[in-house]
């Protein structure tokens, strides 16, 4: 009985934390006015927000009914894939020049996204126009 009570309280706290960080992520998404700063909001949602909600689901499954480890798997997949999509959003911003121009890299010529062969540069310009 007491264990169930503690579990229910823990689930509630986790749900609240998850919902709070989701909410903050959405506010950040709406509030920031630059495409690069806006990118920072979803990283918070996908780590803390979804993480806390999955932890709640994890505790629930082990207290009531059969436990499952799938939540850990969801977490793992999320943590592996979220940086990739964020990276691609950043690359698109760089490519379109919709952000502050980045400084020069330290040892190399340029950044990989901006490293377009001479022959392909005109094609990009034509597409944009």
């Amino acid at each position, binding site marked *: 009985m007491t264990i169930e009570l503690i579990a229910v309280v823990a689930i509630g706290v986790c749900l609240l934390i998850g919902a*709070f*960080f989701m909410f*903050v992520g959405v*506010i*950040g998404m709406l*509030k*920031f*006015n*630059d495409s*690069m*700063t806006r*990118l*920072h*909001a979803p*990283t*918070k949602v996908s*780590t*803390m927000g979804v993480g806390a909600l999955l932890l709640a689901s994890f505790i629930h499954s082990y207290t009531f009914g059969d436990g*499952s*480890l*799938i939540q*850990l*798997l969801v977490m*793992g997949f999320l*943590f*592996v894939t*979220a*940086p*990739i999509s*964020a*990276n691609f959003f*950043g*690359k698109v*911003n*760089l490519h379109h020049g919709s*952000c*502050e121009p*980045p*400084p*020069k*890299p*330290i*040892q*190399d*010529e*340029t*950044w*990989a*996204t901006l*490293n377009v062969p001479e022959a392909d540069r005109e094609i990009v310009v034509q597409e944009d126009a």
Partner: protein
Amino acid sequence: MTRAFRWLFPHPLLTLLLAVVWTLLQNGVTAGMVVFGLILGIIIPRITAAWWPDIPSRFHVGRMMSYMVLVLWDILVANVQVAWIVLTRPNSKLRPAWVVVPLDLRQPEAITVLAGTITLTPGTVSTDLSSDGHSLLVHTLDTDDPDGVRDEIKQRYERRLKEIFE
């Protein structure tokens, strides 16, 4: 013998990982599913070996575990900090900045883990790699000291990754 083993298991750790993931997906350990997971774990690395030819020479699993705990803790702390910035700081007082991190790491796997870590920690997003992979472009949400951010990334994450992969 070693060549045959190398041919059959191009990435032994990946084989293990795939078997474990498959078993977890079934939500219950049964002998049949473990065997099927192992079969998948042998077939998938074999047919994708062409796209991942070089295996990392050394990989410390134990150190990787402690690294993951450190990163999880950092994500927790950074989340609270960034939530505070989002809720209290007006846009005009935000100081976003580009940070260029020179890389000492050379292995692609290690650089991938470093870039992923930087993105997962709220407040920093790794955006691009330089054309020959010698530096990493990181965007920070709010900082008054870009050099400090660079040094922290190098000290806290890159040094540990160097120990894991080298």
